[in-house]
């Protein structure tokens, strides 16, 4: 049982950090693209959705080239901060955040765009400064859509395999997430462990989807942005 708990707990840790990162970036990007108009907005939108459609190993390779010890960004990080991301759970979290980001971004943008602009105008006409409009009107109205997107992002981050394997490797206890643990268990002939891991992962993902649907239903949103 311990063999199954370690990867599960590690996966939950990595997925949580990844979701927080994706949330921060996704909400900011979603707000920017929902509210601002500028040339090339649609191109930027497509670029930001790219991690959702690119094969995970392609993403993993880009990240490796960028963040590897001899990579563009990675070498600088190693020199100045002594930070190595390859083969660490932080690297795994970054890989998972990159694949989860489009889910949050898309949900956030749709949520912000579906807010009745009149409500925000009313708040402004009543004297609210912009930051108060954002905090008191916009975000409370958009939070359900964003939360549903965050849950999908968490599920995606939990299941991330290709990019994680390339960046973080397969180190039990440190970077062996549940998907990688299942892969290893199957190949080592340990079907009993594989079955348990698959069951745990499935239960968590189903619970997340049910919760996301419940949140959306209560908010009467017509469509879950995917």
């Amino acid at each position, binding site marked *: 049982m311990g063999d199954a708990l370690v990867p599960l707990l590690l996966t939950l840790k990595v997925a949580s950090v990844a979701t927080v990162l994706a949330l921060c970036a996704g909400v900011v990007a979603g707000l920017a693209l929902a509210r601002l108009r500028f040339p090339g907005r649609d191109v930027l939108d497509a670029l930001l959705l790219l991690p959702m459609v690119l094969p995970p190993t392609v993403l993993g390779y880009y990240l490796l080239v960028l963040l590897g010890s001899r990579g563009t960004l990675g070498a600088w990080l190693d020199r100045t901060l002594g930070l190595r991301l390859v*083969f660490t759970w932080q690297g795994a979290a970054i890989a998972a955040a990159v694949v989860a980001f489009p889910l949050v971004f898309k949900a956030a943008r749709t949520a912000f765009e579906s807010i009745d602009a009149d409500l925000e105008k009313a708040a402004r006409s009543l004297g609210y400064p912009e930051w108060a409009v954002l905090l008191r009107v916009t975000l409370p109205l958009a939070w359900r859509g964003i939360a549903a997107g965050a849950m999908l992002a968490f599920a995606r981050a939990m299941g991330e395999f290709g990019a994680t394997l390339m960046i973080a*490797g*397969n*180190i039990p206890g440190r970077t062996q997430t549940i998907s990688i643990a299942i892969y290893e268990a199957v190949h080592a002939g340990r079907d009993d462990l594989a079955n348990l891991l698959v069951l745990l992962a499935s239960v968590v993902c189903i619970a997340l989807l049910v919760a996301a649907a419940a949140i959306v239903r209560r908010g009467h949103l017509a469509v879950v942005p995917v």
Partner: protein
Amino acid sequence: MTTRIRVALSAALVAALAWLPPPSAHSAEIVVSAASSLADALEALRPAFFARHPQDAVVFNLAASDVLLAQIDRGAPVDVFASADEATMDRADRAHRLAPGTRRIVATNRLVIVVPKGAAAVGSVDALLDATVRRVAVGSPATVPAGRYARGVLEASGAWQALQPKLVLAQNVRQVLDYVARGEVDAGFVYATDAALMPDRVVVTADAPGVVPIRYSIAVVADSRHKALAAAFVDLVDGPEGRAALGRLGFGRP
């Protein structure tokens, strides 16, 4: 289109198909599942195989030996199995996956410690315990023979437990080589034959001799549908051309 034209076209199509050459009675394709470290040697034998069997084809399926056996156990359509350690071949034998009497030992190898080109040399197994060595790559002992050989060497010198925090496990020995070549780890355990493939990116700095001799064996798989052709491939690897190809790449004679 009128019915008559349609019928005429269909008849013409069928007649045309009947003119196509029938598939040759001799053309077959065998799948050879082989340990990753044998990749280059087997590829070098492809022309010799083609010369002897011009109608047939051979497909190489390369991975860690345990992974390959797991595939065969699950019914993968494999004709020949070549393993990097005897233990995995013995397991295959016990599970009745091998055609009786076809097993041969074809090569030996040496385990070495490599470092990235330009990095500090690691002169011995004990030097891996230095604080300057932050990460060491080995094959995952659960699935990779090279990882088990490395563990054997490290256990013999009492360093296995101490090195645990530094170990990075790889899926096969070529991935260990890749990690070292990329500079993502400070040292790694690979076969001498693998190190010889990248002299511009990795440097051999120490031998890692163990108690268990590194022996490669090959056999025809019991459920193979092309046993004669598979046996011919095994003979090729075990024969003069095979020994020459293996020898050129640094493998030893059994």
